[in-house]
């Protein structure tokens, strides 16, 4: 009798375990299905909410203790819409590259959510995560160090297929790689060459081909043209625009060159010390900036027109960017801002449409994190 009962329990327990497994498998399958489903053009494909990344600062060798944190990204939210290019600008140390690494899941976020087609990718694992990784690819800044010098171009571009064999079956890979080379404007016969046999611009094309290999939906470009010469830069920018139309890609385009960002982006976000200072369409940001930092940044860009030398107002900021390990209280820009008042030291300004512009349809009505947001054109000569 006792034995029977034991057996009964065992029988009972078994289906319970499988039930849990099937529930998990079912949610994973559902997540994969959601990830594979197409998104309408103009709908958000990526939604970032309150993203935070703190790098701990430790002291001591044997007994490490945390003495602080570099607040590289400190509460960043934005949307990326299907088929658009969102430019992210900011100076070194503002956290723009950390955002890229977080979206690629090369770093784990300290807090915050990244929704890809409604799925929070920071919480995914297994098949669903793999499916996301396939759909979000990256093009790196330095075409000299981001390609393995010991691998042929064919191996470099074909390597993603080892992890995602469903995209290109083994026998088909060589043809697929040659097709990609052709798409990025390189001779398909170069498949057996090594990276050092190519110029900087050609190497960046190889990096782009690798990014395209898995037919992703989003490409994160971290300073993709800043290492290139002016004449070659234009070739690569044009290529990226062409590919976007052809493959219906969404770009997150991170750069410090404000002119290039304006050229390629539909919308632009300006970052300062781990926070988003201002975000809007390219016209809103460049022609009607309301955040003092954006205004200073834009006014500092030299314009290739000697006639504009005298006509343009220059805002020369004093000092350097404060350390992200110890950012100023309140508004982070206040230590360099000419408008700063007591309020700025105590209240953190939220990224929102400033009150004075709410409900109006002026181009100044876009999100800006400043207590004293005011429109000012600094790009065009007076």
């Amino acid at each position: 009798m006792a034995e029977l009962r034991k057996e009964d329990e065992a029988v009972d327990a078994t289906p319970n375990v499988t039930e849990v497994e099937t529930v998990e498998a079912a949610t994973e399958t559902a997540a994969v299905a959601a990830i594979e489903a197409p998104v309408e053009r103009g709908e958000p494909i990526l939604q970032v909410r309150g993203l935070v990344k703190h790098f701990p600062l430790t002291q001591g060798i044997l007994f490490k203790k945390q003495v602080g944190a570099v607040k590289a990204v400190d509460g960043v939210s934005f949307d990326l819409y299907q088929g658009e290019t969102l430019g992210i600008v900011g100076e070194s140390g503002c956290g723009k590259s950390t955002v890229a690494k977080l979206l690629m899941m090369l770093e784990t976020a300290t807090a915050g959510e990244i929704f890809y087609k409604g799925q929070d990718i920071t919480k995914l694992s297994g098949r669903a995560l793999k499916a996301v990784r396939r759909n979000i690819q990256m093009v790196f800044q330095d075409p000299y160090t981001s390609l393995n010098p010991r691998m042929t171009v064919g191996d470099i571009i074909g390597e993603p297929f080892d992890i995602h064999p469903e995209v290109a079956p083994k026998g088909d890979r060589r043809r697929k790689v040659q097709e990609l080379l052709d798409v990025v404007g390189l001779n398909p016969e170069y498949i057996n060459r090594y990276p050092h046999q190519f110029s900087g611009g050609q190497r960046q094309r190889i990096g782009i081909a690798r990014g395209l290999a898995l037919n992703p939906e989003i490409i994160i470009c971290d300073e993709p043209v800043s290492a290139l010469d002016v004449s070659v830069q234009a070739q690569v920018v044009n290529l990226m625009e062409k590919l976007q139309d052809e493959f219906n890609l969404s770009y997150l385009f991170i750069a410090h060159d404000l002119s290039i960002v304006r050229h390629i982006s539909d919308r632009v976000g300006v970052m300062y010390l781990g926070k988003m200072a201002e975000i809007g369409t390219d016209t809103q940001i460049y022609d009607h900036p309301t955040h003092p930092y954006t205004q200073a940044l834009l006014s500092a860009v030299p314009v290739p027109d000697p006639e504009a030398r005298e006509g343009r107002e220059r805002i020369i900021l004093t000092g350097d960017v404060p350390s992200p390990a110890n950012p100023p209280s309140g508004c982070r820009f206040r230590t360099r801002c000419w408008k700063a008042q007591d309020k700025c030291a105590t209240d953190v300004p939220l990224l929102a449409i400033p009150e004075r512009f709410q409900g109006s349809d002026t181009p100044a009505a876009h999100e800006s994190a400043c207590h004293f947001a005011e429109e000012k054109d600094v790009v065009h000569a007076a």
Partner: protein
Amino acid sequence: MLLEVRDLYVEFRTRDGVAKAVNGVTYSVDAGETLAVLGESGSGKSVTAQAVMGILDTPPGRITGGEVLFRGRDLLKLKEDARRAVRGAEMAMIFQDALSSLNPVLTVGDQLGEMFVVHRGMSRKDARAKAVELMDRVRIPAARERVGQYPHQFSGGMRQRIMIAMAMALEPALIIADEPTTALDVTVQAQVMELLAELRRELGMGLILITHDLGVVADVADRIAVMYAGRIVETAPVHDIYKAPAHPYTQGLLDSIPRLDHKGRELYAIKGLPPNLTAIPPGCPFHPRCPRARDVCRIDVPPLYRVSEERRSACHFWEETVDASSA
């Protein structure tokens, strides 16, 4: 004329053959004038400057012809110790990467003071006081406290200020700045360029600004020399060149940069790549990439044609180019 470079030739011996880096460059700078030398990587703009300063690595480099006249004296004929007396005292250079140009194990005060100890025979104590004075002048806050710090304790912009202070130390007549702001963020770049321009005005120095940035050129230069494959392809006052370039390469560069003040359409891209310096194309070196190239361009090297009193263009069809670009 403060500095005149005449028909300068420099080549490098490499494994792949002789790289002809500079092929007959001629330019001049007057006191108080800013000349921008514009070119992409490999155009020979930095090598020319190194030959002028006398800091070219020889070997592998070799100056095979030409003159560098500084206040009428040919520097290339001077002995090394005479050259050294000129360098630093009469002409100085600012480099792109301040961190690797400064000595990491010496304090900035020692490095700044060294100029006075070596060239002026000052005592260490006086040199130190001079160093503080210089740091004040380039607006480094708390100079007296920071004079004993090491380069790594300064930010990128501050380090570039120290480089500028070092170049200015002996109030030279000529400064060569090789991409002085390329490694800096845009707001810091604006600070540094403004400082450089201000000190140049104050001291009435000549400035050669080597850059690839057409925006920076438009901002500060009086005259511009555009280089391609080791040659000057166009020189002109800065206003003329932006209004109507007289060389297809200059025009291509201007059309290929995106603008800040409007969105613009597809960028014009100069086709192809800059030439390999071990095998520069015959005739005009730009002809394989040029939309105006004709048979003559493949055979005859274009001389610097006179466009106007102050303008020269090394294009057989410069008239066409000016007409097309001013239309």
